[in-house]
């Protein structure tokens, strides 16, 4: 049973090969959109000599971590983002008829290979960062960002287990918007929202905040621990409440 994620990987590659042109167009569009976004933010940061107490280097570092977090979170665990729709439509059943953990099943079931289009902007960001000593930092916190992003998405995606819904709740856009800019541009209330409610700031600039103030590490890792515990409880309660579709 341990090789099912390898099979999932193969399945995704074959699925991508079946629609290779579609994949190619998606990849190019991602590359263009991300390059334009990072280009404009970094240009603003460079010409203004950073934002508040966040220097150009801090901003590049935050965006690099965020980019890696999104690559890992969205690219390799795309199934998580279909969760709401699956619960609403009842197709979640197909995850529950197999003798494996339904969450693991969902997690590994879909890889979005167009995420390859997200790598060049990351490489450019790291090139601009121009500090090889920060690479392990980016890598570690990039993984943490993916965990925060996916767990917070999963928590929102569990809502249809408990209430009747006919549409997805789009928490992704709000979270992503909070992650795009350094905390210095937000007031305290918005900072709280961006850190703990729609944790976009945790995904991008949380690790930079640790570099600036070590004590923030407790908040950061405590937040991850709370997310994990909350998700385990909510997901398992949700499975009990799951109604499927049709009598």
């Amino acid at each position, binding site marked *: *049973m341990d090789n*099912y994620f390898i099979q999932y990987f193969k*399945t995704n590659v*074959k699925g991508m090969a079946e629609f290779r042109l579609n994949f190619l167009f998606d990849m190019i569009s991602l590359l263009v959109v991300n390059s334009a976004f990072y280009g404009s933010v970094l240009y603003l940061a460079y010409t203004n000599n950073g934002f508040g107490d966040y220097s150009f280097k801090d901003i590049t570092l935050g965006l690099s971590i965020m980019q890696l977090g999104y690559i890992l979170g969205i690219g390799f665990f795309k199934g998580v983002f279909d969760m709401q729709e699956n619960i609403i439509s009842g*197709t979640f059943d*197909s995850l529950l008829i197999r003798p494996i953990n339904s969450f693991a099943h969902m997690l590994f079931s879909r890889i979005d290979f167009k995420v390859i289009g997200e790598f060049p902007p990351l490489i450019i960001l790291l090139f601009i960062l121009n500090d090889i000593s920060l690479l392990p930092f980016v890598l570690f916190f990039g993984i943490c960002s993916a965990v925060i992003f996916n767990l917070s998405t999963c928590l929102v995606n569990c809502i249809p287990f408990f209430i009747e819904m006919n549409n997805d709740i789009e928490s992704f856009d709000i979270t992503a918007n909070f992650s795009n800019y350094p905390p210095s541009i937000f007031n305290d209330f918005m900072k709280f929202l961006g850190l703990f409610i729609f944790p976009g700031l945790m995904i991008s600039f949380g690790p930079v905040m640790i570099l600036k103030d070590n004590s923030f590490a407790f908040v950061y890792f405590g937040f991850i621990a709370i997310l994990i515990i909350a998700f385990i409880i909510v997901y398992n309660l949700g499975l009990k409440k799951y109604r*499927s579709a049709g*009598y």
Partner: protein
Amino acid sequence: MSEIIKVTGLVKHYRVKEKKGILKDLFSPEFKNISAVDNISFSIDKGEIVGFIGPNGAGKTTTIKMLTGILHPDFGEIISNGFVPYKQRKNYLKKVGVVFGQRKSMWPEISVMDNLELIGSFYNVSGIKLKDRIKELGKLIDISDFINQPFRKLSLGQQMKAELVSCLVYKPDILFLDEPTIGMDIIAKFNFIQLLKKINGDEKTTIILTSHDLSEIENLCKRLIIINHGKLVYDGDFSKIKPDEVIIKWEDKGEIKEKRMKKNKVAKFLEKIDIDTVTIKEIPVEEIIKEFYK
């Protein structure tokens, strides 16, 4: 035969909104509980084929979903193949196959073979073991013509065959089939029924089948469970609900006459009338079933 499924006092409620008008629904919606399954109890022996029927919304699918561990019951107990499905789902499903006619479990964009490799990996059936099993199943279900085609490009009948093979590669003890022949043509349906008979005969697989097609159930299942408004209204041999009467039509002095009578009285009756004009018809089983659905 030993008991493989035991269901006791199974209950499942759904909360649905009552329509009271746009404003009331918006500001103070009222809800009511619907009993999808209401105190159902039955047991199924190993190797049995049981037809599970009922009108739309009777609770068949909900019951099947509870038996497969997808849904948690509100009350009641289920012991299936030695497990409590909703509590021990992972271990239980290693030996249980589930096919939903209205919901495909295979990946549409990859071939049937790739799908089988993926599904086999969930059950530790891979490589030569998987190929041997597909070859062995080929005697029952031939999927060689379309095994390398993407699942989405197959006909409905072919898709169902592929779904069934995906369940059989790991030799399940129990097979749950929820309206598996939906959308199939007559020939595909007939072949599918023959196939299930073979599987039951050769592999001693217990089969629980829901369908709206009574001829299908009649051909396949000795035992019938009828459920209506969430309650069990019949559990017994199919033959026992089959009417003991026939409809006889004959011509008498240019006039067509019709009479319902017990099968054992037909021979005596035929002696009295012009036998060349007689037609004898079985009473459709649907008529009897309709009574249970009321």
